[in-house]
């Protein structure tokens, strides 16, 4: 059992930063994201034996994190809906990036979340499908639609 806990701790070191960034995006609240990161690992510890069984421990942790965040959001909807980074200082420095962020923010939530999991968190299509609980084909079509939209919006500048 301690091996499993050590494995979990290793996963925390490896995946913790990505998960924390993901939770910060979802919640737009740094402190709440840190709380939920710990909650994610508490829940993972309850089913710690699944770490070794999971095809992708990374996707498994993201799934838990997403569920934890969804529960929190249901209980108390945050004031802010957009990802934290949309209001970052870099946006002021690079107008094109700001435009890209606006286009991404205008995407349907399902497409935006899928795109973020792919481009920011570098999850594979299969891992995204596991996290979101949808078929791989749906992941692919969401990503394709998002990128098509992005390309057409940026080309129309």
């Amino acid at each position, binding site marked *: *059992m301690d091996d499993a*806990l050590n494995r*979990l*701790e290793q996963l*925390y*070191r490896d995946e*913790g*930063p990505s998960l*924390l*960034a993901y939770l*910060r995006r979802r919640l737009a609240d740094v402190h709440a994201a*840190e709380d939920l*990161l*710990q909650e994610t*690992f*508490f829940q993972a*510890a*309850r089913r*710690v034996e699944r770490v070794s069984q999971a095809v992708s421990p990374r996707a498994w942790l993201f799934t838990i994190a997403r569920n934890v965040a969804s529960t929190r959001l249901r209980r108390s909807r945050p004031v802010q809906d957009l990802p*934290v*980074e949309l209001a*970052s*200082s*870099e946006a002021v420095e690079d107008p*094109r*990036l700001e435009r*890209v*962020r606006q286009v*991404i923010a205008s995407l349907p939530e399902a497409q935006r979340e899928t*795109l*973020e999991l*792919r*481009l*920011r968190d570098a999850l*594979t*299509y299969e891992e995204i499908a596991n996290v979101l609980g949808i078929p791989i084909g749906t992941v*692919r079509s969401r*990503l*394709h639609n998002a*990128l*098509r939209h*992005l*390309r057409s919006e*940026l*080309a129309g500048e």
Partner: protein
Amino acid sequence: MDTKTLEALLLDRALGALSPEVEALLDAYLEHDAVAGQRATEFSDAAIAARRALASNAAADLPAFPRQQIEALRKTRRQLAWVRNAGGLAAVIVLGITIGVALQDAMSTSERTTVQGELVVVTSRDAATSAASSSIWSSRRIFERLQQPKADARNVIWKSAVERPQLGGA
């Protein structure tokens, strides 16, 4: 290659989802198709811009791994599981004892005697017989049972439908 399939491949390529072999083949194809090549560049540019836009510029300050809390949580869960199992076992034992006592009481107040053949007669047990000696597995009861069957047994002899049935010995 049809346009739809080609576009899907170009999008997967821009999203970095193609295997190296497929990507190499596609690149070779794109060298001979300027229009598709242009489209591939646009998709790739859009994906690169999206990656940059989405890149987190705030360094995540990771809190320490809550090992102690997790160990405490697991310990509590193990204790709860132990209590739950012990409670379940105790409940089964109590239930077993209750059923056993109830059965013993039922057996001590009545006895079912079977007459070989057709009749079943239920008679009251002698009140003087103690509960212990009348229990179903008591040695006295088994001994009596072994001694009595020949004497108590009766057969119904019914030779003909027009004659009255008669009781006969064993």
